[in-house]
C-alpha cells in the first residue's frame, strides 16, 4: 500500500483511513455527512494527490491527444480543460479524465488513481514517434477546493481575480506564495477549483488553507464525501459506474464524444454501436428499504433479471436512498418499478430522472 505524500498530516487531523486504488487514503475526518454538507453549503477541501498526472510532450501532442481521447481536443487552446473519456478499440471505457491544453506540443492528462499504470501503457501503445510521455503522478499534489464559497475563500490567498478563471479553464497564478496551476474544475457538482503543486509546497499550502478556513467553517474532506457528492449529481465513478465493458453511449456520456472527428481510438466500434443501437442504459433509481450497493441485481416486477446496480448511496441533501445502474432496454422508463436484490434481501425501487440534484457549477461563457 502506498501512502499519499501528506499521509502524516492527515493522521494529525484524525483521518480515518481506507485502502483505495493501492493507496491508503483518508475516508473521513469528522463524518462523511458533515464533510458532504460543508461542500454543499460552504466550502471543503480534498487532498486528491492519489490522482494521476500524465504529460504528453512533443510535436503534435495535441493532435495525438485528440486521436486517443473522444472529446474535441484539437480545437482547444492554452488554458482549456476538457472532461473526456479514453476508449479501447471495442469502444469500452479505459478511463474518464480531464485533459489540460498547454499548447500544440503539450497536454496534461489528470487520470483516475486506479488507472495510472493502465492509462500510461494504453497511451504508450498508440504513441506517435517524436512524442514523450511523462508520469508525474508521484510528485504531484492536488487539492480540490469545492463549494459555493470556494472562490470567495481562495481569493484570500491571491491578488489575482479568481473570477477571471472561468468554468473548465486553468491558469498559472501567484497563490499560497508561489506560482501554481489552478483550474476551475472539480467533481462534486459545486463551483470550485483544483490546484496542483509539488510535494514540498503541499503541506504549507494545506496548513494555510485550514488556518484561514476556520473563518469559513471549512472541512477537510475525505474519499467518503467525495463519493457521496459526485453520486448526488450522478457523476460517474470509474470502476463502479463505468469500465472497459461499458461504452460511453450506454453510460450516457455521448456528450464527451465528438463523432465528427476524422478518427479516434474506438471510433469504428462506436459507429457500429450507434448504428445498431444500445442494449442497456444508465439510469437513476429511488430505493426503498436500505442502500442498493454496487453489483446488486435489478429485476422487473415479474422477477426477470434486467440489470445491475453500479453505485448506491444515501443522499444527505434529499434525505433518501438512491442508486445508479444499468437496465436492459426497453426497460428503464421513468416511473418503472423494479426490485433490487443482493441475493438475500429485496429492496424496492423506481426509475427516476438524473441527476438527483443539479450541479451548481459556473457555466462557461
Amino acid at each position, binding site marked *: 500500500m502506498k501512502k499519499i505524500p501528506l499521509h502524516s498530516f492527515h493522521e494529525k487531523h484524525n483521518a*480515518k483511513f481506507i485502502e483505495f486504488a493501492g493507496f491508503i487514503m483518508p*475516508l*473521513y475526518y469528522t*463524518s*462523511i*455527512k458533515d464533510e458532504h454538507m460543508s461542500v454543499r453549503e460552504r466550502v471543503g477541501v480534498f487532498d486528491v494527490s492519489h490522482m494521476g498526472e500524465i504529460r504528453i510532450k512533443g510535436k503534435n501532442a495535441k493532435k495525438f491527444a485528440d486521436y486517443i481521447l473522444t472529446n474535441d481536443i484539437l480545437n482547444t487552446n492554452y488554458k482549456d480543460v476538457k472532461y473526456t473519456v479514453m476508449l479501447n478499440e471495442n469502444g469500452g471505457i479505459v478511463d474518464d479524465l480531464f485533459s489540460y491544453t498547454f499548447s500544440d506540443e503539450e497536454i496534461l492528462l489528470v487520470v483516475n488513481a486506479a488507472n495510472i499504470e493502465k492509462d500510461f501503457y494504453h497511451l504508450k501503445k498508440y504513441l506517435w514517434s517524436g512524442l514523450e510521455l511523462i508520469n508525474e503522478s508521484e510528485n504531484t499534489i492536488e487539492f480540490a477546493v469545492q463549494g459555493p464559497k470556494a472562490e470567495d475563500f481562495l481569493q484570500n490567498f491571491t491578488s489575482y481575480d479568481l473570477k477571471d478563471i472561468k468554468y473548465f479553464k486553468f491558469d498559472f497564478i501567484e497563490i499560497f506564495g508561489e506560482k501554481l496551476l489552478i483550474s476551475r474544475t472539480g467533481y462534486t457538482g459545486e463551483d470550485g477549483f483544483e490546484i496542483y503543486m509539488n510535494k514540498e509546497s503541499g503541506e504549507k499550502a494545506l496548513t494555510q488553507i485550514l488556518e484561514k478556513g476556520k473563518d469559513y467553517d471549512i472541512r477537510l474532506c475525505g474519499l*467518503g464525501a467525495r463519493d*457521496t457528492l459526485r453520486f448526488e449529481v450522478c457523476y460517474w465513478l470509474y470502476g463502479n459506474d463505468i469500465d472497459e465493458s461499458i461504452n460511453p453511449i450506454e453510460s450516457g456520456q455521448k456528450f464527451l464524444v465528438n463523432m465528427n472527428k476524422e478518427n479516434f481510438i474506438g471510433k469504428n466500434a462506436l459507429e457500429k454501436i450507434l448504428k445498431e443501437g444500445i442494449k442497456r442504459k444508465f439510469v437513476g433509481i429511488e430505493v426503498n*428499504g*436500505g*442502500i442498493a*450497493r454496487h453489483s446488486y441485481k435489478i429485476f422487473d416486477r415479474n422477477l426477470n433479471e434486467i440489470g445491475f446496480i453500479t453505485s448506491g*448511496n*444515501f443522499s444527505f441533501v434529499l434525505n433518501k*436512498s438512491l442508486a445508479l445502474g444499468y437496465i436492459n432496454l426497453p426497460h428503464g422508463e421513468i416511473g418503472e418499478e423494479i426490485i433490487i436484490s443482493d441475493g438475500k*434481501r429485496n429492496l424496492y425501487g423506481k426509475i427516476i430522472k438524473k441527476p438527483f440534484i443539479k450541479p451548481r457549477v459556473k457555466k462557461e461563457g
Partner: protein
Amino acid sequence: MSKVLENLYYQATDEWLKVEGDIGIVGITDYAQDKLGDIVYLEEASLGRKVKKGEAIISIESVKAAAEIHSPISGEIIEVNKEAVNNPQIINEDPYGKGWLFKIKIENMDELKDLMDAKGYSEYRKE
C-alpha cells in the same frame, strides 16, 4: 476511545442489552456506531416476533457498510424505536440513549451469563 457504560450487558457482535425487570432494551455500542460511520438506514423489527439469542434480527446500514443486528437474548420483540427508524442518525449521536433499537420480553434470564459486562467488553474491544 469509545464509550462503554456500566450496568449493561454486551455481546461480541457489539450490541448492548439493558435489563429492566423482564424487559431487555437492545442497542449498538459506541464502538459499533463509530466503526459503521454515518448510519442512514435502520430496518424496522417486527413486533411480536420471537427471536433466539444470537439470531440476526434487522439490518442497519451506514454510507459505507451494512451490518446485521443480533439479538443478545431470546424472547419476543415488544417495541421498536420508531424515532431511530425515521432518523437513524440518532444512533450515531446517542447509541446508549435515544438511539436504542428495540425491546424484548426476555424468555430466559439464564442467558445473561453468556454476555460480557462493561469491563469484559472494554477488554474485548481494546484497540
